[in-house]
């Protein structure tokens, strides 16, 4: 453990949540510069992939990609490549094209331009076409994407890259509960109880890996009854019922972020996919029961 002066912890409101970056074991000015650059990387993801910003890549795609190819930031393209691959591997359980359903449910603001009447979701299997030169085209007019289930994890990974490029020995990036850690020092992470965010249900040591958690959205300003369900099963267009919350540990945060949604929807059937991505999961059912995959080690849990 270092002294207080060789540690730095900063937070900014980005990606719709509070992003925290913590570093250690370097000179103060080195750490300040690294953290500043890491926040810049997060801000770039925020600018390009926000559903709400009309100038973002996501808005430009939703408004124009059905009419012809739209050139996007290489980072947006990378996220879409991963999203398309994960959509295929999860048999549709992970779907960035779920935006029209979220809009209909009032979880996302409605489309700016009037949509022609048609199916709510894409009718073809691969509605997003990825073209050379970071260009993207939608094969159907009804397609609208929301990268909310993947961009946060990607942003954490990019920020961690920046800290590594600055040759720091230890770093943590936590974007509202989706976090990743590198360096020799493990970070102690508590998991919020998905049935009541004022309680903690588990604790785990995280080192050189990522951890993400999904469940109801959380607004500590409002009573819990106002909280909404932010995860929708694209196939039933309804929120999953049996699982209250999922935490996933994976080699990178993009994967951890996405896999929490997949486990939420697929439940125990997701075990093979978790194995494939060298990931492990901690699941809390709506009745408060905890289930883990064997790979989830080094943790402590609240139990009777």
């Amino acid at each position, binding site marked *: 453990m270092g002294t207080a002066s060789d540690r730095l912890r900063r937070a900014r*409101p980005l990606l*719709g949540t509070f992003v925290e970056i913590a570093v250690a074991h370097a000179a103060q000015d080195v750490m300040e510069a690294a953290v500043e650059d890491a926040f810049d990387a997060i801000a770039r993801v925020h600018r390009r992939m926000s559903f709400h910003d009309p100038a973002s890549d996501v808005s430009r795609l939703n408004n124009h990609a059905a009419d012809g190819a739209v050139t996007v930031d290489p980072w947006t393209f990378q996220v879409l490549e991963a999203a398309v691959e994960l959509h295929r591997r999860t048999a549709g359980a992970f779907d960035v094209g779920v935006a029209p359903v979220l809009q209909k449910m009032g979880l996302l603001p409605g489309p700016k331009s009037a949509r022609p009447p048609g199916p709510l979701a894409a009718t073809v299997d691969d509605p997003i076409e990825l073209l050379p030169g970071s260009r993207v085209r939608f094969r159907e007019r009804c397609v609208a994407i929301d990268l909310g289930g993947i961009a946060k994890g990607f942003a954490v990974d990019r920020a961690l890259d920046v800290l590594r490029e600055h040759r720091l020995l230890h770093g943590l990036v936590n974007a509202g509960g989706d976090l990743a850690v590198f360096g020799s020092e493990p970070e102690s992470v508590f998991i919020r109880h998905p049935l009541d*965010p004022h*309680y903690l249900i588990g*604790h785990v040591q995280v080192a050189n890996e990522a951890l993400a958690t*999904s469940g109801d959205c959380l607004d500590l*300003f409002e009573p819990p009854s106002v909280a909404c369900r932010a995860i929708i099963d694209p196939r039933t267009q309804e929120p999953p019922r049996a699982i209250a919350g999922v935490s996933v540990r994976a080699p990178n945060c993009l994967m951890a972020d996405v896999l929490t949604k997949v486990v939420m929807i697929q439940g125990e059937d997701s075990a093979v996919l978790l194995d494939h991505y060298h990931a492990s999961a901690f699941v809390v059912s709506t009745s408060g029961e905890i289930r883990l995959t064997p790979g989830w080690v080094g943790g*402590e*849990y*609240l139990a009777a």
Partner: protein
Amino acid sequence: MTSWIRLAAPAALVSTIVPPAYAVQYLSIAQAQKQAFPSATSFAQVDARSWKAQSGGTVLGLFVVDHVIGKHLYIDYSVALDPAGRIKRVDILQYRESYGGEVRDASWLAQFVGKSGASAMKVDQDIRNISGATLSSHHVTEGVKRILAAYGNRVR
């Protein structure tokens, strides 16, 4: 095929103990001012919560502190505006979650079963990282908009 491990059902929520407050002090006002305007030689207070950043006779921008308070949440944050009244940066100065019936002793940690070092932890210092349902920063974003409306044309 991987089989899932089922743990004993956790205690009912009513019998679990609320964790102690989660609080982080990121930056003091003076530190945040210096970070936002590294070349400033002075910060002249304008009103109870704003300062003009200056270098010699030149105005570099305006630094404003504000807070948002909810039932369980208290956040201090700062907004730095450039001379044109645009947002230069937003920093969280202090973040605090509190639940009234705070537990000061470490006994609640004893509830956790498993193998890691948590039992030896010091309650107030060691809850540094929490993973859970995403916490919305909407209220801070709204606060930043209010600051922009109130101070955006008052920088110079």
